[in-house]
Each structure stands twice: as C-alpha cells, then as structure tokens.
C-alpha cells in the first residue's frame, strides 16, 4: 500500500468519496479576446492541500499549451522521432506574467495571509510545458497553500487536440497552468509533472473549478464547458458586446470549453427508462446482489454543439451518448455529474476531435457516413467512456495509459456489440459510403517503388543518367476509378459484419515490441501506443472476462471502479482486485500477469492431430495432439467432436509445449479437435490453427466461396485494365 496520504486524509478519503477533490480548487476569471483565440487569465487562484506524506516547498505546473510555442518542444521533437513532421500552422503559447502566494494553512488549521510575489520558472526554457513555483515556506502534509497567477494563452490553429479553426470555432483545452500531482513515485514523494509528451495524454488531481468566462457576444448560446453554465452578464458588459458565464464543476481533474459561433447547440435529457435493457439489468443486479432499481443510472442533461452540416448526425450523437450513460452507469455506477457536453468539431479543426475532458468530449463525423459504419457513434461511445476511465478512475496517463485507454476500449466495444447493430464494412464513392468489402486489394506502391510500373500505377525513373529523377502517377486511384474497375456491386462481399470486440484482434498483426508494463510516453514506436494502450489491454480484459465468467467479471470491474473512483490507481491495484475476485478461476494470476503485463509472451495454442485407431472390436481409439506455440501458459479448453455430433470436453493445463492426449475408445470416429472452442483466449495469436479435422473428414466450403469471390473480383479488375489505355 502506498504511503502517500497522511492518516487524516486517508481516513477522510475512505469515509467521503470525492474527498481528494476538496484538496484542490481553481478559481478562474478569464476573458476570450474578440479574435476568438486569445485567452486572458485575469486571475487564477489555486488552493492546494498537500496530501502526500512529506513536505514540499515547490509547486509544479503543467503548461501544456507551450508545446506549440516552438518546433523544439518535447512534444514536437518526440513527434519527429516518431516520424511526424507536422507543426502547428499558427503557434500557441501560454505566458504567466504574475505569480503570488495568497495564504498558507498548516496542518492544525492555522491560516497565514501572505501576498508575497513568487517567481514562475520553467524547468526547461525550450520546452516550457512544465513550470515551477518556489514557495517561501514548505507545505507540510495536511497543510495547504493558495497562490494566484495571471496569464495569457494564445491558442494554436487546431493542432493535436486543441485550438481554433477559421470560422469562429475554438476548442480551449490545456489553456491554463494546471498543477501536477504530488505523490509517491519511484519510491518517494515527488511531483509527477511530466512535460507534454507526444505519446501520452494528461494526469492531474481532482479539483473544484469555479470559472467566470467572458466571451465575445457572438458566442452567446454557442458555448459548452466542463462545468454547469449560468449566464451572469451585466448590462455594461452587454453594452461592451460581451457575454459572461459562470461555470462550476466539482470533482473534475481539468476544465475545457468550446465555442463556435456557427454551431447548433442542442439539448436532450437522458432518462434510463428510454434505453432500458432488462436482460442486462438483471444480469448486473444479480451479479452485484442488488435490485435492478439500485443499479439503474440517474438522469443527465446531454448538450450537443453540432456543426450545421452535420445536423443529420444529431440523433446518432445523442443516441450513442445516452446508451453510454446507460451502460456505463449500469456496469460501473451512475455518471455523477448533471451534464455531459458533446462537441462536433468544425471541419477545419478536426484535429480537436475524438478527445475527452471532464464532462465534455469531442466526437467527429464526416458527411456521407452510412449508418452502420457506427460513425460518429463509435467515437462518441469511446470518448464518453473516458468520463469513467480516467475521468473518474484517474490513472497516470503518462505511464499507464492502458489503465484508461484499454479499459475504455474494452467497455466501448462491449457497448457497441450490445447496443448497436454490428457495423458493416464500407467503400467510398464520391465521398458517400456504401456497404461492401473487397475480397482483395490491388497493392498500392509508394513513390520510388518500381513495382508500381507493373500495374501501370506510376512511372519511376530514379536512376536515369539523362533525365532527372522522375516519379509520377500514371493514373490516380480515385474512388470513381476504383468503383469502375472493381464493380463493388457485383464483386464485393455485400454485408461484412464486424464484432467490435473481435476487431481488437487486429492488434495481433503487429509486433508487440514492448510489454504493457513499459511507460506509455516512452514506447519506441508510435504505432505501439494503439496496441499497448488500447487494443492489447482490451483483449486482455476480454480474455479475463471469458476465463472467469461474466458474473465474476461484473463484480470485479464494478469493485475496481467504485473503489478507485476519484483516485489514482496503479496497475497492481487492478491485479489485486482480479486476484481477489477470480481466485476460483483455476488460473495462477501472478503467472498470468507475468506473461500478459511484465513480459511480451505470445499466447498461441494449436490443435495438431486427431487419430482414430481401429480396435479389434471395431471401436475407435481416439487420440489427439495439441500444442502450445508461445511462452504464455494458461489452462485451455479442448473439445473433440465425433461423427454422431457428440462432443467430448476437457481442459489442458498447457504446461508442456506439446501433448498427446488419449481421449478413449468410442463407437464412432472423432472428426475434429479444437482447442479453446469458445475462443475465451482472445489473446491467442492464431485462431485458425485451433481446429484440426481428422484426415478423412471433408472441411467446409468456405474456401470455395472465398476463392470464387476473389476470382470474380480479379476478373473485373483485369477486364477494366485490359481495356484501359
């Protein structure tokens, strides 16, 4: 157990959920300039209580917005390392020009007024995303300090989550200096305040926010924020063509706001009765030992800031948000705030889309999306899910992003599978999506790849002695040409359904490279973040749920979420919860996490053979062979199917790398053996080697259908190009 809290605060935290939020508050008085991109921080008053077990005389601040101030910041430098040379078109920066200490309160509650000026310095003068204020006195555990800052933030043109778009859109996030987290890290109390890394998101303590927000008049009723909005404009401010809002939010770890003079502002109220799923309610209430009424989520106001061009998507946004409120509330406890705001980003600010902040998140949609692409429902459910994973259970996203992204990906997929029609694969013609999936694709070769000459895609002349290097496209593969050459209506699979959970297995395509335990911000490959933070942990959770069974898993996840709401859990906290609830699952959980978390072990079981030896009495002696091809050891189910349809089940411990198993003597032949027939082991790298037919047994005609579809597709493509040119 970490010793980062004093006895007092520990007791208080145990008695009062959300107690930690009371340890920190932000009072802000800010004004958005008429240019719609400059924020004057007239006053930022922060009250902070030291909840760790050691004193500190420093306050560390995140100033994330400075990541856009020059091209050599940590974020942009790391971005180049990972292959991204993108820079903000218009820079952004935050300047703190005044800092002072207002007061301190010691552990006994004795307050001391101050007013002493402080120096706000940056840890790194080039990066400037971490600032530090040296206090004249140390703040003892349980003591508190109140400081005041004045600052100005110039937001960048929409870039990597934040910024503005021409036309009046501003998504203001990470726009103010925000305290880091003073906690035990690497065995000692210290400020956990990483610079803005390319590969990580954010981490902060829960706080109460009280924000007075002055906006140009054009943003009246075109604004959403983390807090609950109330207009407090005075007559003189109306004369100044200003609108002033008060926005309050409790128990949140960040404050964001979005304004868009052109957008529609729509409101609907979520009532659980409109989305009630009786079967799921019964399942959850039975698993938790509660009544259905006790697990039902409470009502909430949904606010949607929507681009007029996307008016047709309003229902999709609301429906997805409401279903998320319902299922997340059912599974993990009700959403505790009175509003949730959804932002549909402006076209020229798409880089702000698909991101989450407390009580506010951004979705994203494009014109022409077919309904069963689940766009924007998929991103809406996911970003809403972050209200629970990181929004309420706030892990360190720098180091353990999988604890929110992975858990959220898992939860998102569960909702998509449960509450929506399975998405269908689509192709695009002139910006409009249609259902269908090509059985194959023509390889597309990049510039400099001479293979492009074969398919008459491009001409390469890089090594000519007489002409300068030349590389040009012969034909641009636009959607019309693709349509005409492939004739999707006749050659594509028309309705290819995708299960969201099973879709996670695409991450198995990649070389995993580094174990889950490796800090997220330090992963060696940017693509690995999608695997290690999102899909692989979600697969791991799916695997656990299928091993331990739904009832146990429901209790386990509910327990973990409710115990760590408004706290900062570490991976071991989750491992402990799993071990506590799934003790009877027949799995050595220490070994499981060693394979799944600390190491990069591959999980792959395969069926090797099924033999039917004829006995003297005409019966068959059935023997099977199974293999463990990876280092990951976990017990696995085995199923042997016989000619008459009967089935023999067993469990193999998987300890040996290969195993011959005698099933016994039977009157009929065994026709197939299958390891993990229920596909519980979602982490199994290869599912196709799980089955093996007896030698004289004919398989399904799947291959025939696949090859005919492929042939038809190739035929049309070749016919098209046979007549082109």
């Amino acid at each position, binding site marked *: 157990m970490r010793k980062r809290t004093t006895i007092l605060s520990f007791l208080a935290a145990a008695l009062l959920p959300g107690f930690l939020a009371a340890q920190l508050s932000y009072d802000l008085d800010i004004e958005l300039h008429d240019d719609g991109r400059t924020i004057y921080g007239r006053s930022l008053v922060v009250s902070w209580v030291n909840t760790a077990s050691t004193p500190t005389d420093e306050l560390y601040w995140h100033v994330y917005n400075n990541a856009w101030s020059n091209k050599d910041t940590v974020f942009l430098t790391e971005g180049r390392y990972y292959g991204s040379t993108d820079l903000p078109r218009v820079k952004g920066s935050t300047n703190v020009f005044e800092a002072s200490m207002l007061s301190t309160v010691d552990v006994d509650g004795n307050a001391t007024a101050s007013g002493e000026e402080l120096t706000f310095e940056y840890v790194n003068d080039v990066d400037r995303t971490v600032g530090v204020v040296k206090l004249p006195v140390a703040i003892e555990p349980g003591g508190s300090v109140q400081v005041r800052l004045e600052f100005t933030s110039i937001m960048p043109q929409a870039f990597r989550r934040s910024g503005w778009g021409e036309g009046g859109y501003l998504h203001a996030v990470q726009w103010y200096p925000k305290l880091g987290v003073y906690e035990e890290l690497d065995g000692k109390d210290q400020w956990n305040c990483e610079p803005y890394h390319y590969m990580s998101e954010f981490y902060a303590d829960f706080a109460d926010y009280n924000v007075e927000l002055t906006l140009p008049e054009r943003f009246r009723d075109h604004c959403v924020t983390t807090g609950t909005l109330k207009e407090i404009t005075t007559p003189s401010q109306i004369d100044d063509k200003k609108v002033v809002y008060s926005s309050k939010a409790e128990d949140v770890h960040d404050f964001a706001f979005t304004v868009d003079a052109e957008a529609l502002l729509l409101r609907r109220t979520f009532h659980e009765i409109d989305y009630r799923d009786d079967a799921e309610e019964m399942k959850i209430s039975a698993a938790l030992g509660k009544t259905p009424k006790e697990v039902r989520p409470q009502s909430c106001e949904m606010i949607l800031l929507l681009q007029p061009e996307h008016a047709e998507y309003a229902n999709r946004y609301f429906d997805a948000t409401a279903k998320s409120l319902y299922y997340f509330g059912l599974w993990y406890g009700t959403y505790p705030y009175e509003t949730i705001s959804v932002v549909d980003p402006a076209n020229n600010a798409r880089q702000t889309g698909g991101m989450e902040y407390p009580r506010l998140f951004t979705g994203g949609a494009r014109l022409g999306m077919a309904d069963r692409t689940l766009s924007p429902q998929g991103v809406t459910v996911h970003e809403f899910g972050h209200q629970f994973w990181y929004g309420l259970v706030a892990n360190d996203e720098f180091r353990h992003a999988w604890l929110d992204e992975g858990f959220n990906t898992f939860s998102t997929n569960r909702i998509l599978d449960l509450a929506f029609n399975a998405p269908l694969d689509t192709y695009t013609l002139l910006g409009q999506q249609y259902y269908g999936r090509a059985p194959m694709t023509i390889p597309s070769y990049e510039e400099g790849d001479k293979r492009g000459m074969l398919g008459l895609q491009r001409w390469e002349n890089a090594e000519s002695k007489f002409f300068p290097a030349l590389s040009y496209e012969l034909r641009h593969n636009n959607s019309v040409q693709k349509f005409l050459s492939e004739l999707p209506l006749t050659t594509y699979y028309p309705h290819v359904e995708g*299960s969201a959970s099973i879709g996670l297995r695409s991450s198995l395509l990649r070389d995993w490279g580094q174990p889950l335990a490796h800090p997220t911000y330090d992963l060696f490959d940017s693509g690995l973040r999608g695997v290690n933070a999102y899909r692989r942990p979600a697969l791991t959770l799916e695997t656990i749920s299928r091993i331990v069974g739904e009832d146990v898993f429901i209790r386990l996840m509910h327990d973990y979420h409710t115990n760590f709401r408004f706290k900062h859990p570490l991976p071991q906290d989750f491992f402990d919860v799993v071990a506590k609830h799934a003790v009877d699952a027949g799995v050595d959980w220490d070994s499981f996490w060693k394979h799944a978390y600390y190491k990069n072990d591959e999980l792959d079981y395969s069926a090797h053979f099924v033999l039917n030896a004829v006995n003297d009495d005409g019966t068959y002696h059935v023997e099977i062979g199974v293999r463990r091809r990876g280092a990951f050891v976990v017990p696995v189910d085995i199923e042997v199917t016989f000619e008459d349809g009967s089935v023999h089940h067993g469990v193999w411990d998987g300890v040996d790398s290969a195993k011959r198993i005698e099933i016994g003597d039977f009157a009929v032949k065994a026709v197939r053996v299958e390891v993990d027939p229920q596909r519980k082991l979602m982490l199994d790298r290869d599912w196709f080697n799980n089955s093996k037919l007896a030698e004289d047994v004919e398989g399904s005609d799947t*291959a025939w259908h696949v090859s005919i579809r492929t*042939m*038809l597709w190739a035929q049309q493509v070749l016919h098209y*190009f046979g007549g082109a*040119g």
Partner: protein
Amino acid sequence: MGAASTPLLRRCRVKEEQPKEQIIVDAMNFSDEPEANQQPEKIVDIVEDSQEDMAAARPGSVRFLIGGIFFALIRPRVLCFLMLWSCVLPLVVAVPMFNQANRDLSAVQDLPGQSILALPESAPAWMFREWQIQSCDTLTSISDVMPLLILLSSIFGLLFSAGWMSMATHYRDEHSLRAFLKGGGESFFPFLRTWLLALPVFALTTYFFWGTPSEWVLEKLMPEGDAALAASETTGRAIDITRQLLYMLALLKIEIIIDLARASIVVGKRSSAVLAILRAVGFLFRRPFAIFVIVLLGFIIEAALIFCSEWLRDLLEWPLIAAVFMLPFVRHVMRGARQSAVANYYRAATGE
C-alpha cells in the same frame, strides 16, 4: 436500303473530293451473307453545318453500337476464347487464395454468436480480419501478383482490341478465332505504340488534376488548397467530387482519342501511331460527340446488362460461380461492340 431512309447517311460527313459512295458497314445493317455486306450504298452528305452534324450524330451512333452488339454476339468462338481468357487469368490469384483458405478456414466452425456459413451473400468480419492477421504474408504475396496480371491484361487487351477492330473492318465475313487473332496480330504493334504514347498523356493528365496545377487551382478555392482547412466540409467535398469527375472525364476523352487512333490504324492499315493519334484528335475536333455517344452509351448498356445478369442470377438462385461466366460474356460482348462500332463509324465517317 434507300439512302434517304437511313439516319446514318445524314450523319456521315464526306469530304468534297471523295466519291459520294460509301460502303455501309455491317455495324448498322449487318447480314450474314457476305454478298449483302459488299453491296455499296450511296451516301448523300446533306449536312453541311457542323452543328447540325453534331445534332444529327446521336441516332446514327446508337445504330452503330447496336450493330456492334450483334456483330460481337454472332462470333461465339471469339467470345468463348475471350471468356476463357477472363477465367484463366484470375485463376493466378484465385487458386492460391483457395489453397490458403482451404488450409486456414475449412476446419473452422462457427464462433459463438457468429456465423461464417453465409459467405456468398454476407460474411462476418472476424474471419477476414483474422485471416489478415494469420495469413498476412501469403495474402499479400497473392495480391502482389495483381500488378503483373494487370500488365498482362493490358497488353493482351491491345491484341483483342485490334482483333475486334480488324474483324469489324477487314474480316467482316470471318467468324473464326483465327481471323480474330490474325487481325489482332496485324495491328498489335501499332496498337502497342499508341498505348505507350498514351501513358505519358495519362500521366500528364494525372499531374494536371492531382499535381501542382490542381494545387494552384485549389488554393484559389480553399485555404492552402486543403479541404481539411475549409470552414465548410460541403465545399471541400463538392470540389473533390468535381475534381474526380472531371479527371475521369478527361481520361475517358483520352481513351476515345486512343480508340479513334487505333480505328485509324486498322481502317487505313497504317503503322504510325503518332500520325494516327493526330488524325484521331482532328477527327474528334470535327465530331466531338458522336464517338462519345457510342462509348458512353456502350458503358450504360454494359452497366444495365451487368445489373440484369446479377438480377437474373438472384432470381434464378444461381450460385456465385455463374457470375464468373455471365459477367465476362456481357463485358466482352460490349467491349467488342464498342470497338467495332468505333472502327466502323470512323471508316464510315472518313470514307477510308
């Protein structure tokens, strides 16, 4: 057939110095009797004004195309050969695909809550995604063959194109595969040269629509010429769609010029691809719509026939493999019809 009763005759322009007698090609009044086809018909060029010429072009073009369809349909040996070609070449990818699928999928049974059995009409994504995971290298190597097949198909497409045009203009009495290939062989290399000459034109067109010139135009329409920076997504989308359509239209125009050049090569038994292309450009200038009508209508009829064949297959509940034979039949008939119609029209119009 009387000249005055034939719309074609009103359409065909004849140069002043040329005799006012033309052979009406079998595209419009085809007869199986060789003698009948050899009967010359009189043409009276009653249209002097080019505008009127254009207006009058449409019905004649249609008749050339319809004649072309019949011309192709009554050459079953040629069609069988082309269908065989269309069935054999895709086997290069279909057979390895079958082998791999048979290895990976035949033992797979339904997953809980999912089905893999309805493959001809639908399919669960898990199987394909899994397949991409497990057989990634093999599937990639199979699809890597496609560019090579496309190259082969393009080159043999030239041979077949020459075959249709030659048969339509010089071997009208012939129905044999031998004549088709002979005709194709005679013009193959000039056709190949037109193809090679067309490639840089295609590239230039692509450069114009997708390279620096288009960027210059787009910068006038959107910030930095980037649809992602346009305040309105609708604007960006409309510009992109317009660009795609104009590009495809430009490619179609080039295709028409190349087809006309080939018609010129076949009809005039020429060998210079450059001169043929220049001649084709001149021809298209004089008659900008007639050939366009043949080609476009050909595509429309082809699309309708493809739709009908799929509808018929559904109605009769024929398996998917029926489409493997039905579609090439439709498409080769229509390609033969288009090419013979273009060649015949060119010959009729130029009097060569």
